[in-house]
Structures are given as structure tokens and as C-alpha cells.
């Protein structure tokens, strides 16, 4: 994963507060201390981040390192529990009106900001105003556009009215709530990024308080004794910023750090290099499905790829199992569509494309690609079938995927040239200008099945995300209906149908969902792997007194 790629992959995961999700929560090592004794306070947890954090007010940031740190400093009204259900955080309870237009939150009464001031509904109103202020440079305004009014009925009751039913209404209140008494002037002046709290001493309501940030070196947090759910067990969290994955691994071997960060190990490290007794003793390894899939995308305005049979042929020609084995050492799962197996919106009964070269040839022939030229390349109307497959630099995995696909398609009689381009240039010159034939990229998916931005035919502008130019009226309809309902059973019907359409059209070849591969020092207890990964209950992690290594009170 490129540094940039990785960072962006991070945001949804953390925006959903609670980290990565996954359905098959196979902890590799089940000795992960449950039960043994009562949790004890103390010790320092040393984590690694590959990128420097860019600030301390996550609402105006976009990198996963900042979200990781921010999620311990701030809280939202709601969050996700181990099974990915939405549960209250700053909100005690909530209620939707029957038409999905009115949402009323009852807030907790015992919450204090890190500076001791009480938290009230007014702060939530302020956060909403800050997000909607056109001068606030935030990337998450869209979540609140459907809101028509937000009102503090009393200090602990918040009333939100929506102009039309919005499926992600509840989830959007997982956003980090900001303190009015500290940040109001900066928001008014449009200088939220320049606020000193973005650099040091941020004020939140979360389980940890800010201690220090040495840019490029480390961030230190300490337990918040007044946290509304009780003081967290680990007394001190040190995030060390270590850009090199190789160095992180050596630090793990020397037991200089307790975790390889939220991103975890690489497949090679996880499968091969970490497989020796000393490592297994010192660390527990976890494996669960990440919210990211890798795909082979086509420019659908290219007449060759506009033909569905060609895309289907390619899907049949790529051996996904072998691909996962090759680039992820098997640590991934085949994707059949843009939803993760095991989540409620996932539809298992869609058309699949098992590896079948004969079928692939048949489909290509039906599309008019029958004869081969002297070089063994398929020709139609005098034009040989050759194209450039592009991907971004700094992501070895994608480069390897491209190479394997190149080989597979060569068997089919299609010539593929690979080009690897630096991310910013790639985005600007090829993706935004739609000047590509085929690409290898990935999509991070949210915890809500709404994927309007990626697939709807109205989202094909240069800055929009339907980069391949997919347009199918029925799919559009399903997306529109799916996001306008707040009843899960109803939405499920729309998204089931949507997945059938996608599988039939195969606008991109869905390749695989990668596994997240975190490791945590074995002295840390209380970790309970779940579909929501491992970090959702970070506050409950602890180190038994005899195993505590650092003397931080």
C-alpha cells in the first residue's frame, strides 16, 4: 500500500469509530487472554504509525494516523460495537420518528471535556455548525447536508430534523464532537485548521488525554481519569512514527513496540517472517477481513470494454485464488461484488466468475475477438487487442496483481502493458481526465452499504468517484431507493438486487478483500477479536500487574 493509499484507506474505518470490520474473526492465536484475573491499571502501550499525524482535530483532517489518535481523544454520539451494531457513546439513547425524519438523542449527563467543563447538547449543535460552515475545510460535510435543523431542546436532549429520509443519518453522528467553548472563534473565522488545539492540547471527551506530540517522532496520550465509562486500564499510549515497515518489524522482534499499528503486518511478515517461537510467544497475531477490496477497472467509454462479454471474459480468465495466493500469500478472500461477505447487505447468490479459460475464449469470440495475428494477439477489424494497465506507485501488491493479470490475459491473446505512476500524477493526469484504459486500484467500503458515490451514473464528473463511467438505470434506481430508506429489511432488498446487476454487468473485475493482520504484545489482555476487528474495545485492554513493563503510573 502506498503511504497515501494507506492513509486514505484508513478513514472510513475510523470514521465508523471502532476500526476495521470483518466477519470471520479468526484470531490466529486463541490464547488471547480472556478471563485470567481482574483487569489492572497501569503500563504503557507503544504503538507504531507509518505516517506522521497531520493534526489533532480529525474533523478537518484526512489521514488515518490522525484518525487513530483522534479516536482516543474525541467521542461521537454513537459508535459501533463488536458486531458492528450502532450503539450509544455520548448518546444514551435515541429515537427515530416513524417517517425517519426526526431523530432525538438523549445525551449522557456525566460527561466532561478534558478541561473539566461539562459536555452538553450545545456542543453537538456547535459541531454541526462547524461541519456545515462553508469556511471549514472538512471532507465530511456531505454527511450533514440532509439535515434541515439541529436543536438543543435542553442541555441533554438533541433534536435533529431531516429534510428527507437519509439512510446514514444515525451513523453520521459518529463524527467527533468538538467543544464550543474552546473552538467557537476559530470556526467563525474559518481558521479551524490553524487553531492551536490542532497542534497541541486538543480538548475532547474521549478515554485518553493529549500529553505531547513531537512531529515525525511520537504522540503521547495519557489515560483520562474522568472518562465517562471509567478510566481506561492502559495508563499511557505512545504512538511512535516509523515510516518503514521493515523497521517496524525489527522493532517488534526486539520488543521495542507492542503493536505494528492498526495496519498490522504485511502478508509476508505475517505468514513467514513472524513464524518462529520467540515471536509467537511475545505477540498474538490476529486476522480478519479488512474493509478494502482490490479491483481491475476498465474505462467503459472504450468500445472494447463497453462490451460486457469482454469484461466477463476477463473475469473468467483471472484465477482469483491463485492471485490471492501470489500477492497476499492466501491472506485474503475472493470478492464477488463491492460488499464484504458476512455483512448484512452482502448477497451471496449472484453470478460468479470461476476460473475457466474455455469460457473466457468463448465470450471473447462472441464479442468478435476471434482471429489471432502472427504475435498470437487477438484481432478485430484489423486492430490487435492490446491496452495499458495502470496502477499507482508505492504499492507492490497492486503491481504484482497487474503482472499476474498480464500473464493470464496473455494466454487469452490479449497484450497488456503495465505502467506504474506516482499517485498524484496518476490521479490528475489519468484518473480525473479519464485517460486510462484499465486500472488496478482498491476501494475502501464503509459500514453502511450506500455506495451511491461510486456507482451512480450522475457521479461521473472529473472529480467524482464513478471513475469508470458505469451507468445502468436499474442500478441507479436501486442506489437511490437504498439510501432513502431507514428500514434495514427494505434496504436489503434494494442492495441485493443492486449486487445482482453488478455481478451480471461486471463493470469492474472484483478481485479480493484483503485481510488485516494486526499483532499485539502477548502481555496485553482483554482483546476480544470480533467482526469489528480488535480495536473497538481498546479501553478494556490491560496488562496484568506482574507483566507490566513500563513504570508509567
Amino acid at each position: 500500500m502506498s503511504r497515501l493509499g494507506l492513509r486514505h484507506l484508513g478513514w472510513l474505518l475510523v470514521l465508523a469509530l471502532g476500526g476495521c470490520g470483518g466477519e470471520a474473526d479468526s484470531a490466529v492465536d486463541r490464547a488471547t487472554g480472556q478471563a485470567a484475573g481482574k483487569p489492572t491499571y497501569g503500563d504503557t502501550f507503544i504503538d507504531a504509525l507509518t505516517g506522521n499525524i497531520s493534526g489533532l482535530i480529525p474533523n478537518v483532517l484526512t489521514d488515518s494516523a490522525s484518525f487513530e489518535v483522534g479516536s482516543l481523544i474525541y467521542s461521537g454520539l454513537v459508535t459501533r460495537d463488536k458486531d458492528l451494531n450502532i450503539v450509544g457513546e455520548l448518546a444514551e439513547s435515541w429515537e427515530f420518528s416513524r417517517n425517519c425524519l426526526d431523530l432525538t438523542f438523549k445525551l449522557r449527563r456525566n460527561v466532561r471535556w478534558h478541561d473539566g467543563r461539562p459536555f452538553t447538547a450545545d456542543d453537538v449543535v456547535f459541531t454541526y455548525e462547524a461541519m456545515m460552515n462553508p469556511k471549514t475545510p472538512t471532507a465530511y460535510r456531505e454527511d450533514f447536508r440532509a439535515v434541515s435543523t439541529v436543536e438543543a431542546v435542553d442541555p441533554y436532549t438533541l433534536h435533529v430534523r431531516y429534510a428527507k429520509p437519509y439512510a446514514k443519518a444515525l451513523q453520521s453522528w459518529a463524527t467527533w464532537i468538538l467543544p464550543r467553548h474552546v473552538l467557537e472563534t476559530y470556526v467563525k473565522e474559518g481558521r479551524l485548521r490553524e487553531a492551536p488545539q490542532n497542534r497541541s492540547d486538543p480538548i475532547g471527551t474521549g478515554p485518553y488525554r493529549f500529553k505531547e506530540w513531537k512531529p515525525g517522532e511520537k504522540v503521547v496520550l495519557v489515560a483520562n481519569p474522568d472518562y465517562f465509562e471509567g478510566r481506561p486500564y492502559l495508563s499511557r499510549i505512545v504512538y511512535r512514527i516509523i515510516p518503514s515497515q521493515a523497521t517496524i518489524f525489527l522493532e517488534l522482534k526486539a520488543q521495542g513496540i507492542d503493536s505494528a499499528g492498526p495496519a498490522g503486518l504485511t502478508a509476508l511478515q505475517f505468514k513467514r517472517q513472524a513464524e518462529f517461537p520467540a515471536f509467537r510467544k511475545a505477540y498474538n497475531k490476529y486476522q480478519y477481513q479488512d474493509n478494502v477490496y482490490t479491483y481491475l477497472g476498465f474505462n467503459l467509454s472504450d468500445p472494447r470494454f463497453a462490451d460486457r462479454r469482454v469484461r466477463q471474459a476477463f473475469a473468467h480468465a483471472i484465477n482469483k485464488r491463485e492471485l490471492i495466493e501470489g500477492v497476499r500469500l492466501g491472506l485474503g478472500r475472493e470478492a464477488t461484488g463491492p460488499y464484504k461477505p458476512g455483512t448484512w447487505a452482502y448477497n451471496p447468490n449472484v453470478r460468479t466468475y470461476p476460473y475457466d479459460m474455455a469460457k473466457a475464449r468463448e465470450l471473447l469470440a462472441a464479442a468478435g475477438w476471434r482471429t489471432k495475428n502472427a504475435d498470437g494477439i487477438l484481432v478485430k477489424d484489423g486492430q490487435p487487442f492490446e491496452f495499458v494497465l495502470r496502477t499507482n506507485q508505492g504499492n507492490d501488491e497492486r503491481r504484482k496483481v497487474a503482472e499476474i493479470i498480464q500473464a493470464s490475459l496473455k494466454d487469452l491473446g490479449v497484450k497488456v502493458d503495465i505502467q506504474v505512476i506516482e499517485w498524484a500524477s496518476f490521479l490528475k493526469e489519468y484518473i480525473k481526465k479519464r485517460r486510462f484504459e484499465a486500472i488496478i486500484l482498491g476501494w475502501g467500503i464503509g459500514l453502511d452499504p450506500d455506495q451511491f458515490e461510486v456507482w451512480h451514473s450522475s457521479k461521473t464528473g472529473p472529480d467524482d468517484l464513478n471513475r469508470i463511467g458505469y451507468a445502468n438505470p436499474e442500478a441507479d434506481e436501486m442506489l437511490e431507493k437504498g439510501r432513502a430508506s431507514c428500514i434495514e429489511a427494505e434496504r436489503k432488498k434494494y442492495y441485493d438486487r443492486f449486487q445482482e446487476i453488478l455481478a451480471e454487468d461486471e463493470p469492474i473485475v472484483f478481485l479480493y478483500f484483503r485481510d488485516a493482520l494486526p499483532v499485539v504484545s502477548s502481555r496485553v489482555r482483554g482483546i476480544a477479536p470480533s467482526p469489528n476487528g480488535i480495536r473497538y474495545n481498546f479501553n478494556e485492554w490491560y496488562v496484568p500487574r506482574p507483566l507490566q513493563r513500563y513504570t508509567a503510573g
Partner: protein
Amino acid sequence: MLPYALRRLVLALPLLLGITLISFCLMHLAPGEPTDMGSADIPTQSDKEMRDRLRQEWGLDKPLHVQYWNWVTRIVQLDFGRSFSPDARPVLQKIRERLPITLLLNLVEMMIIVTLAIPIGAVSATRQYSKFDKITTVFVFVGFATPDFWLALMLMILFGVQLGWLPISGLRSPTWEYLSFWRQQWDFFSHLILPIVVATFGGLASFSRYMRQSMLEVVRQDYIQSARAKGLAESVVIGKHALRNALLPIVTILGLSLPGLIGGSVIIESIFAIPGMGQLMVQAVWERDYPVMMGNLVIVSLLTLGANLVADLTYSLVDPRIRVAARRSRR
């Protein structure tokens, strides 16, 4: 002398302006803008409104020459601007934070290189083809051929993981605050050992080669012959007459590597997780953080020009011919 220095100083100004102009253009030639950088793989809503606002705020919506002019007018007031990255911090502050550690590492590295390279080079020149010379030649080629990152990893594995003598990365232990004063000093120092060894290794190879070459040329000169003919001891001939002359080109190379002192090495900094100038610059390039890139460039060019000026002035002090030539050209 003084008019000459002044003249050079005045001439340096348009040069500096030229450097910044070219850098500015090159920087903008690279595709992608800071406002484009968001939403790699994650379907964030592409908020055009926000992007336009930022472009306007940063002045990216204006024609390039206007942008450059604005930048120049600010820079002459020593206003380096604020970073485009989301922390929006003043550029100078960001540089100030990173500079000390880079300077420290590079200065120490440079001192070690000089103190080791000069004797090594001198000895292998005066004993050309001796066993010592041959061994150092092998060492030099190994030094040239060894990639930084590989050597770094090997040393980390040996001293950090296997032997456990030295810390692997970073500048301080996570428990630094809780150590006694002297333990703190040792802790910091021990973190610097591996990076300095790695950085020194390659530099030592090339510097000792320069020194050997320079020395070889000098010992063949007539005046060395006459010194010997006078009956001076060999140690005086080499140590006094030859060495001093052989050092001249080395001083030039040293002068030219002054700007490198603040450059920082991206590879070494990334592998050892050292928050120095190299990482700052590379990240700025990735994020198209123009103010940080330009701020960095201005400081490096100032140092380069300054170093050149000082070198030239020193020459003219040492060598009368340069002064005379300067005077003639003025007529």
C-alpha cells in the same frame, strides 16, 4: 577586497531569484495539486466547494506569474507562509523543528569522515600499492557498492535484535522522561550511533578516495622533490609540505557539501525513523505542499550561494591571482 565581496553579494541576488523562479515553475509542472490529494481509495464525497475555497485561499486560482510574484513579495518580508497540509502551521516553524537533528547528524558525520578520510587517504597515497592501500581500496569499493538501507537493516538486525546492544530506531526511548539525566544523554546518544555509522560509511569511501588522489598528485610535484633534496625528514615532507597542499581541493569539496548538511537523507531518516529535513521535504513533495517545498529550497539555495561566496572569498585571500583577475575584469 570589500568591494569584491559586495559585488559578489549583489550578484547573488538575481541568482537566487532565478533559482526560486525555476524551482517554482518546476514544482507547478508536476501534475497534481494540493487540493487534489484527498480520496485515494476511499469514496469520500468529493467536495468541490471546499476545494475551490482552498484554492482561492491559497491563491492557486491565480495565473502562475501572479502566484510567483505574490510569493516573492511575501518572502522578502521573510514571510514563508503556512503549510498547505491540514495542520496549516507556519513553514518556518516546521523547518525549525526538523533542522536541529539533521544538522547534528550531518555535522557529526562530516567530522568523522574528515578525521578518518584524511589520514587514510594520505597513508594510502604515500604507500601506494602497499597492503594498507589495497585493503582500503577494497573497503572503498565495498563502501561505494553497499546500499544505505541494506547496511542499515543488517546493523539493526545485528546490534538491535541479535545482540540487543543498541536501540533500533527513533531518537529516544519511550520511557525517556523517566530516566535520570545521564541515562537520558546516553539514551539519546545510543540512538544516533547506527544512523551515523551508516551515513559515514559511504561518505568515508568517497572522501578517502579524493584525499588519496589529491595526495598522489602532490607528492609527484617538484617542490616535494626539493623538500626531500633539502634533507628534510620524510614526516615533515609529507606532514607539512605535501599534506597542506593536498588539502586544498578537499576544502573545496567540503565547502560544496555545506548545503547538504541541512538536506538530510531520506533513506536513512525513514529507516531509522528520524524526524529530519529529508522526511519533511519528501512528504511536502508527495502532498504538493508548495510553501514547505519553496521554504526548504530557499534555505538550501541561500546556503549554497553563501558557501560558494565564502569559498571564493577564501580563495581570493589565499591566492592573489584571483584578486588581480577580479580587478582587471572590472576595468
